[in-house]
């Protein structure tokens, strides 16, 4: 009986892990990384829906959060509020080098990069901007981490 429950819970975990929904937060980005993220969904060449992903319009619906941009001082409070709206369990992916270290804007007076001093980041995807295939690779790693947290 317990093995039945165990296999059932493993099956539901695998099924649930086949449906990660993605939400993008633009934390002051130049939009280069956001364009590459958009191509993973909209362009037939890099279809991210094969992995079961779907870009959703509300942070409440999301499982994987993609953050682009160095956390500029102007949007810092808004980003922290929106980030808190995403329900657990969630995985955060920092897309581009700006959230990881500030990128080209490092040591600027208006940026609060690196972003992992304000919120927890799980996967980094360096690049300026990273290729859509690299973003999909990062999302695949994030799905693997999320599966463990489910």
């Amino acid at each position: 009986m317990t093995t039945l429950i165990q296999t059932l819970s493993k099956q539901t975990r695998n099924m649930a892990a086949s449906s990660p929904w993605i939400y993008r937060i633009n934390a002051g980005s130049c939009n280069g990384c956001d364009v590459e993220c958009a191509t993973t969904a909209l362009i037939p060449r890099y279809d991210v829906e094969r992995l079961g992903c779907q870009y959703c319009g509300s942070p409440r619906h999301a499982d994987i959060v993609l953050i682009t941009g160095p956390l500029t001082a102007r949007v810092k409070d808004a980003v922290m509020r929106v980030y808190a709206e995403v329900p657990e369990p969630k995985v955060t992916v920092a897309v581009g080098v700006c959230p990881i270290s500030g990128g080209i804007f490092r040591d600027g007076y208006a940026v609060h990069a690196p972003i992992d001093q304000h919120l927890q980041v799980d996967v980094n995807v360096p690049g300026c901007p990273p290729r859509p295939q690299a973003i999909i690779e990062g999302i695949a790693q994030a799905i693997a981490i999320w599966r463990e947290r489910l």
Partner: protein
Amino acid sequence: MLESLYAPIAALLFPGGLFALALGLALKGLDRRLAARLQARVGPPLAQPVYDLVKLAKKRTMVPDLANESVFLGAPLIGAVSMALAAALVPIPGFYTPSPVLGDLLVLLYLLTVPAIVLMIAGSASGSPFGAIGFSREMTMMLAYEGPLVLVVAAVAMRTGMGMGGVISFSLTDIITYQQNHGAFLFDPVMWPALLAFLAFYPANLGIIPFDIPEAETEVLEGPLLEYSGPALGLFKIMSALKAVVVLGLGVALFFPIAPAGVAGLLVQIAKLVVLMLIGVTVVRVSCGRMRIDQAFRFFLKWPLALSILSVAIVALV
């Protein structure tokens, strides 16, 4: 052949409840896959809606501070239950006739308004401005498409009633029997204005492009569903899957219920629903852009309303 089933089993298991849910999720999976292939993409696996529901069941529902908690959590429950019950009211020609205890076409019409009302209430109970915008847009769309729906149903009921010697008959069983004896309304030129009005009504009711204005992702950030997460959002997805089965099943029953008796009738019904979904929903969804709320409202007040009034007049005079 099953004449009628004991009402609770019909509402919970077959053909309402679980069976309609499974059918609705399968239709949605087919729809997403075909939409992807039409856009030259690969698309998700066919069981993707099931995976979405399982995942939503594992997340937690967060209730906003400003929301009215009982209404916020009760609205999706009411919507899902009403659609499960409505699926038991839609007859499967040749296989299943709903028991008279459950109700007839009028009850089905009232139940069809419940999902829209539930979305409106959910939007206004969310306590967020996007929810309020979604609430007002859903109300506008409902005002726009309910008129043609009621008139089309009245036209079909009148044609059946007058053909059987009375004036009007709201029993779906009578409508199906009349069409099986006298030919489907799909091929009856007198009913073609009603058919056209119904073809304009169902995309608005199902919430597909070009009329998915209240839940537009890019414009109002998902409107009424913005603050929902976890199992409550899963109940909304269940409601929309069931609604597809109910509305398409109603279209089949009103205009083309010719089917063999027995299990073949069930299979023919499923095939008709699949064809209607793929051609009537997916191709439309993929090839159009979304309309603005004022454009959609004006459109519905012009052609579908005129066609439905015309069809009632023609049926009354002929």
